[in-house]
């Protein structure tokens, strides 16, 4: 992969002067990271041994990227420091919507049901399913731990997102929030800056938005800007939502205070952590 975003200089948290060169993790975190790595390795083995992509996808623990048509030259990149975070353009909204509508027209009925249920749950039961699945994945559960009907639902949703990814012709810059469990917001930011190229795994489906103004996190939530080719645009009139797939691996790039277009002619100041997707080909290259 040719594109590497610039490493940004943090302005709101201590600069990138590593104390010991690594993030201070607990035994539990190390165990979790090792389990995630083992899962990715197992998926690579499945890919190598399965006869077809379909057979592999039926066994994989995490969905593969299907951004086959990505044109890096048309991508969007993380916002450089000292620049204002812009709102998404009407052009990008129309392009993304046209792409996802092309994909949605090719969903089979089950994928359509799964996607609609997960993106826009209409009943308490559907919300319970969505939240229950995300809790399962975020706490380290595998799709293979689920019972058959639930596995089918998950793989249908994965398939719907993959179809949308195949229509992606560019990278996206999207925003979401992280609520960090087990430590304070400031300690997390400090640790990020002490650990160059720190990897953050998002194990559940993550709801994001192309417009940072649409993100409303808790008081302690960390705003994150993500450059990625993955996921499915779920915007409509007045919305620029984006659903990221489960099992997304991100690399920390930098953090800082940014001016954010407030949509009313002014700007607001926000601390934003910037991360970029770690792509499959990069993982493969790192292993070899």
């Amino acid at each position: 992969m040719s594109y590497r975003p610039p490493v940004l200089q943090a302005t709101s948290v201590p600069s990138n002067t590593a104390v010991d060169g690594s993030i201070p993790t607990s035994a539990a975190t190390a165990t979790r990271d090792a389990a995630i790595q083992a899962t990715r390795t197992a998926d690579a083995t499945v890919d190598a041994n399965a006869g077809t992509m379909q057979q592999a996808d039926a066994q994989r623990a995490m969905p593969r990227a299907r951004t086959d048509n990505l044109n890096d030259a048309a991508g969007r990149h993380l916002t450089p420091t000292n620049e204002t975070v812009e709102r998404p353009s009407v052009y990008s909204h129309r392009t993304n919507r046209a792409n996802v509508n092309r994909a949605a027209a090719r969903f089979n009925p089950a994928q359509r049901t799964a996607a609609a249920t997960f993106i826009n749950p209409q009943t308490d039961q559907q919300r319970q399913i969505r939240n229950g699945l995300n809790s399962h994945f975020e706490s380290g559960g595998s799709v293979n731990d689920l019972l058959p009907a639930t596995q089918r639902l998950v793989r249908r949703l994965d398939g719907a997102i993959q179809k949308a990814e195949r229509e992606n012709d560019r990278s996206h810059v999207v925003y979401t929030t992280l609520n960090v469990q087990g430590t304070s917001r400031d300690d997390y930011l400090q640790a990020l800056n002490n650990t160059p190229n720190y990897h953050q795994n998002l194990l559940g489906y993550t709801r994001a938005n192309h417009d940072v103004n649409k993100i409303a996190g808790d008081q302690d939530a960390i705003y994150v800007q993500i450059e990625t080719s993955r996921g499915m645009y779920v915007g409509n009139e007045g919305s620029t939502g984006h659903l990221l797939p489960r099992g997304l691996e991100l690399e920390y790039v930098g953090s800082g205070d940014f001016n954010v277009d407030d949509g009313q002619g002014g700007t607001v100041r926000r601390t934003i952590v910037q991360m970029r997707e770690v792509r499959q080909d990069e993982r493969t290259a790192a292993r070899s």
Partner: protein
Amino acid sequence: MSQEPRLTPEELENLVNDEFADASASDEDFDFPADPDEEDEAGELSDEETEDLTAADDDYGQSVTFSTE
């Protein structure tokens, strides 16, 4: 994103089965597409269905586990 008590696989399965009870009879139609280029063509979505698929979602973000203890 709010954290809810984790459901057991059995509880999740029951919810899914209840929610999709009507669809289970034709579940063979719901297999993962065998070949991306030979999958079922569902045809164009109606405006209403497209709206469902692209509806706004106000629940953003994800909780991540991180501990220095």
